[in-house]
């Protein structure tokens, strides 16, 4: 079999078009920026009949040209994807093959965007995202990886090769190499080549997203729970509590992250059971948060309160103990929970990664929540609630927190990106996750040794990580812009 070229036969037509439209985009963008300096802004002329017309002038013309160039590039990219999905191996090349592999992702993305765009006026802040192009690009990138992780990791619809199996003769093969000794029903190509252990780079990149999606959002959520549960009372009560908690937060923040990882995420530390103790404390905070949230809301209706609180605590405690307890843990303390109620075990290695990421992130969240609380507690509606005789926790959780949601949502997006970077850093230094794990940091670390000879095994996961983090940052920027506009 012939090796694949990057764009195959469809490239004969589409490559020149992409080249021209990309060049047009660059030229018009530079022109639009340059013209916005030298020419005046919109001139407004009043017509004799009293109507007003804006004359965009030369810079307006450049802006319109830029818009058309953007559409041309987008249309060409869509053409690549659609053509790649329908034509065969040699017709689509590597790009076409990848487009075909991601078919379920494209369909879900198209459906999500169509539905969201149609109903964007009724969807609140989420709908407003579709008014800003930056926000839409960011959202698209993020959802691409979310769907990839979902379809590849849960439903097994995307990747073609086992990320761990090694095929002889495929070591360090360049992208598009045909699989040596392919059997019927097996995917006949290594689309992005093989790594130095002859594993498929493309499959590993796709499955790497699953690992990031499992850890990063959940760890960020836990960090937020910890930060909110401690930050609200610190800001609201102030005084000694605030001084003490702020000192602790600054203490952790003054620790160089990389040093903390090197001290915490080692096999020796897992042996001592320290991650289990930290998990025991850190994972208690979501439980406290939910408990206090429900209790403060339904305090005056004991029957409803008991019902909701009972359900929440039963589920929460079951999850908490399943997470914290481990029947194979070295310390007897973590084996007291009966095995039949232990729904799942998290391996010590993953637990320590999770715990340390939560630990590093929560002080920053604490500082943000504390600052917001200090600002919001001087508002009139807080004074009104105090006069009504509401409990402090009701005021914190049901008056202050909802009004702090804007900056918190923006920071949540940014922080998932930062957590992804941290996970990559851990993988890059070979800490925590097992060495054959397909997560992006570990794969970059594997690939960097032969980087100057065979760059492809490291470049693919690097670009994947870059696109996800960039997407999250752009999404946060779009959200910030749109929430400020309210």
């Amino acid at each position, binding site marked *: 079999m012939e090796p694949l070229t990057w764009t195959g036969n469809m490239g004969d037509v589409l490559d020149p078009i992409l080249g021209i439209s990309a060049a047009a985009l660059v030229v018009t*963008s530079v022109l639009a920026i340059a013209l916005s300096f030298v020419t005046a802004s919109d001139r407004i002329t009043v017509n004799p009949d009293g109507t007003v017309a804006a004359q965009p002038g030369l810079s307006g013309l450049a*802006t319109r040209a830029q818009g058309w160039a953007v559409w041309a590039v987008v249309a060409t990219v869509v053409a690549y994807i659609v053509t790649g999905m329908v034509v065969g191996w040699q017709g689509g090349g590597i790009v076409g093959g990848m487009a075909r592999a991601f078919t379920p992702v494209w369909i879900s993305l198209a459906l999500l965007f169509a539905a969201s765009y149609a109903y964007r006026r009724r969807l609140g802040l989420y709908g407003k995202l579709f008014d800003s192009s930056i926000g839409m690009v960011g959202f698209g990138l993020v959802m691409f990886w979310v769907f990839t992780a979902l379809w590849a990791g849960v439903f097994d619809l995307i990747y073609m090769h086992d990320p761990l199996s090694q095929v002889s003769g495929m070591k360090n093969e360049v992208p598009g190499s045909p699989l040596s000794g392919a059997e019927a029903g097996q995917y006949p190509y290594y689309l992005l080549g093989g790594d130095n252990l002859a594993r498929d780079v493309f499959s590993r990149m796709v499955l790497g997203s699953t690992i990031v999606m499992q850890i990063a959002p959940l760890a960020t959520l836990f960090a937020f729970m910890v930060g909110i549960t401690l930050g609200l009372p610190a800001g609201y009560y102030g005084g000694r509590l605030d001084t003490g908690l702020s000192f602790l937060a600054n203490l952790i923040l003054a620790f*160089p992250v990389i*040093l903390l990882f090197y001290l915490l995420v080692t096999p020796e530390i897992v042996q001592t059971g320290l991650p289990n103790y930290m998990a025991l404390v850190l994972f208690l905070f979501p439980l406290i948060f939910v408990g206090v949230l429900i209790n403060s809301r339904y305090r005056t209706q004991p029957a409803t309160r008991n019902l909701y609180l009972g359900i929440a605590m039963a589920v929460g405690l079951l999850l908490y103990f399943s997470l914290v307890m481990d029947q194979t843990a070295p310390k007897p303390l973590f084996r007291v929970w009966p095995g039949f109620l232990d729904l799942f075990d998290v391996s010590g290695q993953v637990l320590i990664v999770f715990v340390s990421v939560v630990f590093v992130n929560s002080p920053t969240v604490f500082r943000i929540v504390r600052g917001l609380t200090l600002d919001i507690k001087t508002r009139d509606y807080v004074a009104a609630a105090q006069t009504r005789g509401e409990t402090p926790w009701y005021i914190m959780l049901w008056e202050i927190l909802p009004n702090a949601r804007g900056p918190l949502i923006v920071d949540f997006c940014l922080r998932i990106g930062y957590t992804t970077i941290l996970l*990559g*850093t851990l993988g890059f*230094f070979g800490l925590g996750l097992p060495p054959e794990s397909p997560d992006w940091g570990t794969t970059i670390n594997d690939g960097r040794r032969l*980087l*100057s000879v065979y760059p492809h095994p490291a470049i693919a996961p690097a670009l994947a990580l870059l696109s996800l983090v960039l997407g999250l*940052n752009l999404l946060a920027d779009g959200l910030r812009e749109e929430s400020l506009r309210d």
Partner: protein
Amino acid sequence: MLTFILRRLGVMILTALCLTFIVFFLTNLSPNLEKLAKQQANNRMSDEQVVTWLAARGYDDPVIVNYGRWLGVLPHFTREEAGEVVFSRCADPGMTAAEAPRFCGVLQGDWGWSTVFQDDVLAILAERGWQTAKLMFFVMLVMVPGALLLGVLAGMREGSKLDRSLSTVSIATTATPEYVSGVIFIAVFASSAVGLKWFKGTATSAMENITFENFTLPVLTIALYGMGYIARMTRASMTEVMTAQYIRTARLKGVSFGQIVMKHALRNALIAPFTVIMLQLPWLLNGVVIVETLFNYKGFGWTLVQAAGNNDIDLLLGVSIISVVVVLATQLLSDIGYVFLNPRIRIA
């Protein structure tokens, strides 16, 4: 002002003590000590032998006591047999245990002995730190002017085309961690297979002789990640200044736009970025560790990785003292600098 600095110094010392204690505790956990014993004496020691070996060297005393000894406020461990000192941790090679000083801790300038490099910790740190200082100097030389230019250009006309383009650029740089940009740079500019071959993919030779060819990529990789954040802070500060009343007055007087930016706005807009740049310094440590590993440049970050990877307890403790002190000192400097630069803030 003096009380403010004194109070900050007090908090700083307390923080430094807490942090070094945490590091000491984590590096002296029993599995680490067991590894140390096996490294130093015999790899096939039994568990009892390990315990005796550690006890004979004072490792089994309470952590807080050992921390005090390491710090130099408690006399160091000595073992006596028949009224005579036969072992002292303070004894340097070629010195009998009896004539060794009683105290030998960090405060006495004795930072210990590195088991990996077989050298004095302080000497290693001085040499490696000098390499990293050179790297940081060039990073600052690229990063600070670049970030300020980016931020001022973006912030002088809020919402303009230039602002939106430059803001997207700075978002993109903050979203590119060093291990991603470093890998991409090496592949594009240094790879022997497909790349442009403009620069070298390793910086080992830069330790003796810095050239444009071997130092560009590492410096650029670190500078890029920090640049976006400083640029965004500069932009925020610049947009705030540009909406101030005195700028409007200058405009109404008929001062040209260039004059307003250069003479009126710039000086006030650069107060906030100063703090950010100072606080960014410790964050660069992350980048330094990654870049020194990636480009095989044997500096401070590379030493950290070697010390942590080889269970070199004394060296790791030395590295953490340096990094903790750098973090706290920059925090203090940024606070004091902010008060000095901004005449609106007065601390009684």
